[in-house]
């Protein structure tokens, strides 16, 4: 029996129907299902590392990637995930300029719905856009990032990366650092990590941390030294360039001085602490290359690999639900 056949058997055993018709937010998951999903994703990691890399779990299904915002990483990740599961994949980069109003978005949804896709993967600049689409189409919708709201598959792949690095996420102290205010990655991660028993801290300048973030069940710090003390994981966030020009942060050099992760700041965290970043990175702004490229501390490359496996797990679970006719 080949390695990929073993993986295929494992996947068949571990594949469970998704608990909800759509995957819009971290709250659509529950702890036992998250564990099941991670187990399934682990099997997909093995499959992806084998020479065959393909299964026919989504044969005959159509997955539509609908990206209203520019994306390379997430869009490719979903596309590869769907293709490896045997789905017909259509990726549609939509110009944001032509789709600004809710009404137009709904028109788009109705049009696409008429093409009978099975799974719609959506990224949009407006918070709540994925949820709105899900109400207007007859297929499963996966939120690939909606405004500042959520990016649940990113949180799932981060969780997978952490579980593989540490064995268990429960009891870990994770610091999410940087532009919390505008980050959907932060929101999804706070929800999912907390759900799975991790302690979450938020660190960033006061202009980039929402005033009510302390009510998210996290500790909030504005000082990296204080915030990183006792942390096992340092998750850096991308800082949008337009926010670094004196509007919310005075300059990139000041940001890097106080909140950019380098060796010195990493040393304030626990020994053996791991570094994460959802990408794409602003080297020398939120993270120093020296840290980002050091495979002994950086999980950043792992995150990309785990992204494909986690999304395969999500698509496989959603299709399992579709098969049950729910």
């Amino acid at each position, binding site marked *: 029996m080949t390695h990929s056949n073993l993986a295929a058997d494992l996947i068949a055993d571990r594949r469970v129907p998704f608990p909800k018709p759509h995957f819009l937010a971290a709250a659509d998951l529950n702890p036992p299902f998250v564990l099941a999903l991670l187990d399934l994703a682990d099997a997909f990691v093995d499959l992806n590392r084998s020479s065959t890399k393909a299964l026919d779990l989504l044969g005959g299904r159509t997955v539509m990637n609908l990206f209203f915002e520019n994306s390379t990483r997430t869009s490719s990740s979903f596309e590869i995930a769907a293709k490896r599961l045997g789905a017909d994949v259509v990726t549609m980069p939509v110009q944001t300029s032509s789709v600004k109003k809710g009404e137009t978005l709904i028109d788009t949804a109705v049009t696409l719905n008429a093409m009978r896709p099975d799974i719609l993967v959506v990224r949009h600049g407006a918070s709540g856009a994925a949820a709105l689409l899900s109400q207007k189409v007859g297929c499963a919708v996966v939120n690939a990032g909606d405004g500042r709201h959520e990016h649940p598959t990113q949180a799932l792949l981060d969780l997978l990366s952490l579980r593989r690095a540490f064995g268990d996420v429960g009891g870990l102290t994770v610091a999410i650092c940087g532009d919390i205010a505008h980050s959907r990655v932060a929101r999804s991660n706070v929800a999912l990590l907390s759900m799975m028993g991790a302690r979450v801290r938020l660190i960033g300048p006061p202009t980039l941390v929402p005033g009510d973030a302390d009510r998210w069940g996290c500790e909030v710090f504005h000082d990296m030294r204080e915030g990183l003390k006792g942390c096992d994981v340092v998750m850096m966030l991308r800082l949008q360039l337009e926010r670094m020009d004196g509007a919310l942060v005075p300059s990139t050099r*000041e940001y890097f001085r106080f909140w950019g992760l380098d060796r010195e700041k990493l040393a304030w965290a626990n020994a053996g602490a791991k570094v994460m970043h959802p990408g794409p990175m602003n080297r020398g702004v939120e993270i120093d290359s020296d840290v980002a490229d050091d495979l002994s501390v950086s999980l950043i490359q792992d995150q990309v690999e785990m992204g494909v496996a986690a999304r395969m797990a999500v698509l496989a679970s959603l299709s399992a639900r579709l098969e049950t006719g729910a």
Partner: protein
Amino acid sequence: MTTLAIVNARLLDPATDYDGPGSVLIEDGVITRVEHGAAALMATRVIDAGGLCLSPGLIDIRVRTGEPGAEPKETLKSASLSAAAGGVTTIVIQPDTDPAVDDPAMVDFIQRRGAALNLVHVRVAGAATRSRDGQRMAEIGLMHEAGALYFTDGDHVIADSRVLSRIMAYASAFNALIACRPADPWLSEGAVATSGELATRLGLSGAPAIAERIQLERDLALVEQTGARFLVDQISTEAALEVLARARGRGLEVAASVSINHLCFNEIDIGDYRTFYRLDPPLRPESDRRALIEAVRDGLIEAITSAHTPAPAEDKRRPFAEAAPGAVGLETLLPAALSLHHEEGLDLLDVLRPLTHGPATLLGLEAGVISAGAPADLILFDPGAPVVIDAAALRSKSKNSPFDGRRLQGRVEMTVVGGRTVHTS
């Protein structure tokens, strides 16, 4: 090691409320012993004060110079000489230079230039926004690290509430102090006097006093929202003082400064369009001046500043409305402040507190006290000595003193900075 003892002095220490006979011993620029009452201190050099007042050196938190960018008005050297002569041992340079002090290199430059003079302590206030444009946040963290004591756009009001709110929030990460001039920019636009009968009679465009209150209400609302440390820069009206008192009552961490000019003059002094009284904020009615004096007495105001603003003759020899606002004040600060003691009946310690311990506490400086371990920044002065202010004799490059020709009381006999004598009369 040389040691210096100043004995037989009248010690005035607002930090401990001590006003009585005493002596101090200074070693390596630091006060090592303070004796209350008569005491014989041994030192390599002993100065017998002969009963003169010995107080902490004055700390002036609002000093404008022309260096860099407008050196003919004032240089760091002329300002430092002026400060030393006036008993001011620490000056805080405003960021409205050219270029503006809006990055750490500029903070460092001014501090180094100041230190090289070996006169008084030259410290810096950084700009809150880049080029003081009121829009783009300046590098508050890096400037704070470089030694900037607080952040302000000076006379430029940050009109955009969102910008100021973000600056306050951001600065709180460094526990940095933000200072703002309370002046509604639209009501104050083009104004050279306070609205009222006098301004109308003189035909001068005036801004209503409520322009200050309106802006202060906004600033304090943002302070409440962001939790920033905040300084009301140059409060000048009774209405604004009431707003400040209410905010303090709500537990807000808000301090206030007042310029010596607004404690000593009122709008009547404008009289026959004398441009040395063209100030910003403009001079106010007597009722406001009286309220400001009471606020100093009560401790509602933490700092009295000289609001030192050099303006050369070519900027002042103009019609009132076209003249540059501002007045020099480093050298006249002490005798002018002592007029509050002599003429208004304020206790000497209450006059000295907002000139020494108050600003030191506000800015986190070790100076401003006479106690063991504190830097030996001290002044010896004769509080009753009559002086006639002669603007032409001022060490400042610009001579625009509204006190020119005034008879005051109080002369600085000696200024000591870090144990070094930098001025003797």
